[in-house]
């Protein structure tokens, strides 16, 4: 792309994109706050690493749902595939965590690329059904192929070697949280760079008006294929991190429930903002940790109620509501 002239850097596409990529002080504060659990809540480090993993998974869904407008009811397929890949290669002696991440990303990305050819052609109900069908299909495959995956008993003998040959994944979760936070941070940097690029802008164009974009020369299907594959890779990496920090893989990683939960988390936080999934994951996981101690039966009642309330009252999620609040506040003061 050639950049048009932007006098004094005040306007023009490049100036716009550059302004978008500037780090807001709140963002820096947010990432510094993610380090707090090490000092303030050292007993909750395993929960914190669960939150980081969920946030990473939500981030991957945000890329396709929030930016390209692809609703998926089967995103757990990629998460689960990554989790199983990392688990299975560790059973066969390749237990290095970083190797596991690469393998999980490759395998999940390949499936994402293969299915993206289908995804790019559908919208609405057919898309919901196809993504859900693919998710269920993979769950059934993992269930039936018990010689490879251990079936409903879960995978036996996951053996993760120490990170970089030195840091062991212990029960206290220091390594686990540091590792999942680092993976989340690097994936976030990548996603942030991506959505503020011209490619990210054209994705938003596709979300807003899929008919107009081809008319101005955008290759819709190719863009969707690309972002769907990237999202699958990140989801696969999230799954791998879960396997590596907990040393277990069970069929639950591929459940429809997981696909539904991650959608709930992202909607709760707010789509199309990158931080939405992170905030949503924090609220959801902390609430689940607190509520399930009291009454696990009723947990889904509150989630359901929350969903109804979010759709009816906060259509843009928590972050959308906050943005609206601050906007109206600013409007009043100025």
């Amino acid at each position, binding site marked *: 792309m050639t950049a048009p002239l932007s006098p004094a850097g005040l306007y023009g596409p490049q100036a716009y994109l550059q302004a978008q990529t500037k780090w807001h002080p709140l963002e820096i504060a947010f990432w510094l706050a993610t380090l707090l659990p090490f000092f303030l809540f050292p007993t909750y480090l395993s929960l914190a690493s669960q939150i980081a993993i969920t946030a990473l998974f939500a981030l991957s869904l945000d890329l396709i749902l929030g930016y390209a407008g692809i609703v998926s009811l089967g995103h757990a397929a990629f998460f689960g595939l990554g989790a199983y890949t990392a688990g299975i290669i560790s059973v066969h002696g390749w237990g290095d965590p970083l190797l596991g991440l690469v393998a999980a990303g490759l395998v999940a990305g390949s499936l994402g690329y293969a299915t993206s050819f289908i995804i790019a*052609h559908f919208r609405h*109900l057919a898309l919901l059904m196809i993504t859900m*069908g693919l998710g269920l299909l993979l769950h*059934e495959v993992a269930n039936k192929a018990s010689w490879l995956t251990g079936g409903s008993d879960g995978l036996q003998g996951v053996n993760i070697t120490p990170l970089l040959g030195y840091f062991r994944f212990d029960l206290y979760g220091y390594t686990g949280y540091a590792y999942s936070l680092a993976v989340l941070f690097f994936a976030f940097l990548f996603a942030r760079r991506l959505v503020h690029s011209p490619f990210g802008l054209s994705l938003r164009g596709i979300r807003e008006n899929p008919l107009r974009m081809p008319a101005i020369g955008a290759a819709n299907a190719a863009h969707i294929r690309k972002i769907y594959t990237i999202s699958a890779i990140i989801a696969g990496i999230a799954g791998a991190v879960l396997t590596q920090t907990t040393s277990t893989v069970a069929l639950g990683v591929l459940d429809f429930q997981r696909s539904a939960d991650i959608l709930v988390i992202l909607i709760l936080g707010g789509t199309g903002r990158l931080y939405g999934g992170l905030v949503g994951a924090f609220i959801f996981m902390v609430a689940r940790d607190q509520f399930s101690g009291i009454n696990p*039966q009723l947990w*889904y*009642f509150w989630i*359901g109620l929350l969903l109804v309330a979010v759709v009816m009252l906060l259509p843009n999620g928590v972050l959308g509501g906050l943005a609206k609040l601050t906007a109206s506040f600013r409007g009043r003061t100025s």
Partner: protein
Amino acid sequence: MLPPVFGVLFDGLAYGMLLFLLSVGLSVTLGMMNFVNLAHCAFAMLGGYVTATLVNAMGWPFLLTLPAAFLAAAAAAVILERTLYRRLYKAAELDQVLLTIGIAFMSVATAAYVFGTLQQPIQTPSFLRGSISFLGLHLGAYRLFLVLTGFLIAALLIVALEYTRFGARVRAAVDNQRMAAGLGINVEAAFAITFALGCGLAGLGGALAIEIVGLDHTFALAYLVYVLIVVSVGGLGSIGGSLAAAALLGVSDMFGKYYFPELGAFLIYLVMIAILIWRPAGLFGRR
């Protein structure tokens, strides 16, 4: 004498009729208002619990509880439609998905809280138990009853939609909502009635399903997948399509379970994806 394969075929057909009853309401409402109602099976579950409670706790005869199951689900549907669903008819499908999946979650938790997590067995009348011999096949009496009920309801629905004034209004609203409204048809009322009818049928299906697939608190989500498969494969708003897709799904599921148990549900999902890729609007869909 007929070979046993016909017995499997018959069982599959009975199962298919059950799926038809569960899904036909969703097919019509989805086709009509483009409203993705993932809570559809929650209404079926409600019907199931109404029947189970009336039979087990109050001693009602099974057949009498079926209209009660229909009415209870229809009444719940009207209340929800007027309070929540109506506001989202024009919203994006994602919002509809989230709202209705939220309702489905709530129904699952409520059922677990009120009725516990155990299966709810019911006592069917003696003439529906046992089996009938026909050309050397032992046909379950209850399954025969299901097939007959399914065909009866399909016939009633087709007559009601094709040959009555109300049916003409509904079809007009399905085809072109704005034009129908412009011609003085009260689209909202037509939709509210259709929605109640569809959910009532789901309630009836849920009540009839107890004997075949059982009833517990996960029903609202466990059968959602099958119902969505029937609806999307059959084509939105097509009663004949739903009937055909439900029969196809029921028979192929039964065949899979008898002859290829190692494949599990794999085959069904694969066939669904293939059909949707081939015809995104379903086998009998018009759009």
